[in-house]
């Protein structure tokens, strides 16, 4: 086969690409558009000034990465609530099963994706850090 034609064809393609608009996102300056149903950092939903979570343990049960730790407590109204709610972001695989499993719609996943930290312990998100603002 003639070896030159494919090379010229390839060169034509690269030359055409030269005039295309680059797809690069100038990240820290330009922010990506996060999809509505993006599975990023978790958030604990709030209702009547407290977390909706009732500490039913469904989310740690369903979690395939075993990254959620919940401890139940009893509040002043003798209602069950999560006294401890921790998610280890180093283990989390962002599958979203916890959100699906939640019977009281207390958990959601936000568009937050910049989860870098300096210490391993900083990756364990406590209840206070997870509560939606």
């Amino acid at each position, binding site marked *: 086969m003639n070896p030159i034609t494919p090379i010229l064809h390839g*060169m034509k393609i690269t030359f055409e*690409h*030269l005039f295309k608009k680059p797809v690069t996102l100038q990240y820290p300056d330009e922010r990506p558009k996060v999809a509505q149903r993006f599975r990023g950092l978790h958030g604990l939903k709030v209702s009547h000034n407290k977390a909706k979570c009732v500490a039913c343990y469904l989310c740690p049960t369903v979690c395939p990465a075993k990254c959620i730790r919940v401890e139940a407590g009893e509040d002043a109204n003798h209602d069950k609530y999560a006294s401890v709610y921790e998610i280890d972001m180093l283990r989390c695989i962002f599958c979203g099963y916890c959100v699906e499993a939640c019977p009281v719609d207390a958990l959601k996943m936000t568009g937050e994706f910049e989860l870098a930290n300096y210490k391993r312990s900083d990756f364990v998100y406590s209840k206070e850090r997870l509560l939606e603002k």
Partner: protein
Amino acid sequence: MGIEILGLPLMYYIAMVAKVLVAFVFVLLTVAYATYAERKIIGHMQVRLGPMRTGWHGLLQPIADGVKLFFKEEIVPSQASTFAFLVAPLIALIPAFITFAVIPFGGVIEIAGYMIPLQVAAYYDTAAGQVMDINVGALYILAMSSLGVYGIVLAGWASNSKYSLMGGLRASAQMISYELSAGLSLIAVFMLSGTLSLTKIVELQSGMGGFDWYLFKQPLAAFMFFICSLAEINRTPFDLPEAETELVSGFCTEYSSMKYAMFFMAEYANMVTVCALTATMFLGGWNGPFAVAVPLLGPIYFIAKVYFLMFTCMWIRATLPRYRYDQLMHLGWKVFIPVAFANIVVTGVIGYFI
């Protein structure tokens, strides 16, 4: 013009130093910004942006790279042969730069009554009324370009590392094979020109409004010379000596800091030289419309041609993957050399009957 040193007017020395400085600074700047241009062009060819963050659209990137490399730690492997290891980058770099001495980058300009040919190793003979340059300029270039191989082979051997050694071996084999066909394709040009002086070769291409190029008379030789030169200076798709997928970084695996930068500069300086040589041999050098009448147009045409060829090098790099080693040898020995010989024979036969 009263003062004379060693039988030559003072102006000769001033002009010579000025030409050396201008040519050297031009090559250095081109080398620095060729790295930037390459990253930008290949980036855009891959629908990316390339460097953007150092200065406006990354324009200060070569300076940042240089400063970074300059301040890096010099590492000499304990088992390396130190002297050869230190001297190898210089051997690679110097021939790349001194080749430029014989390449004419413009016509003759007149300053204060003194005629200065725009070529480093040349002077204007007022008695004969013509430019005198090295009459074997092309031979000098071929000699210098083969000298650059020693730097790479020495680097590969002195590093005392198997990757470097493999890179050096590949470099020597590749450069020797491609040097042959590059030289042979130039012979076809010399058969037409009848001279090895680059000034004469450029002059001979000045007909037809500056478009009487050897490219049109010897298209095959031009094509082969350019491809073989790419192979000789280790540009992609022939960059087997540093094939990072197989040999880490080839001959410069063990190098760091400014010594590594020297290899890098040598590579790009070689690219400038080869493009300048191709422009001189096949694209009419500094010739172009009105170049003889307006002397300042000459360098502009020359630079435009060199930059166009350098763009082509980068374009090829963005398009083609690396050749396999046996394909490389096959191409060099079984395709280019026979075709170059055939080209010489055909040129000779046609030249005999015309």
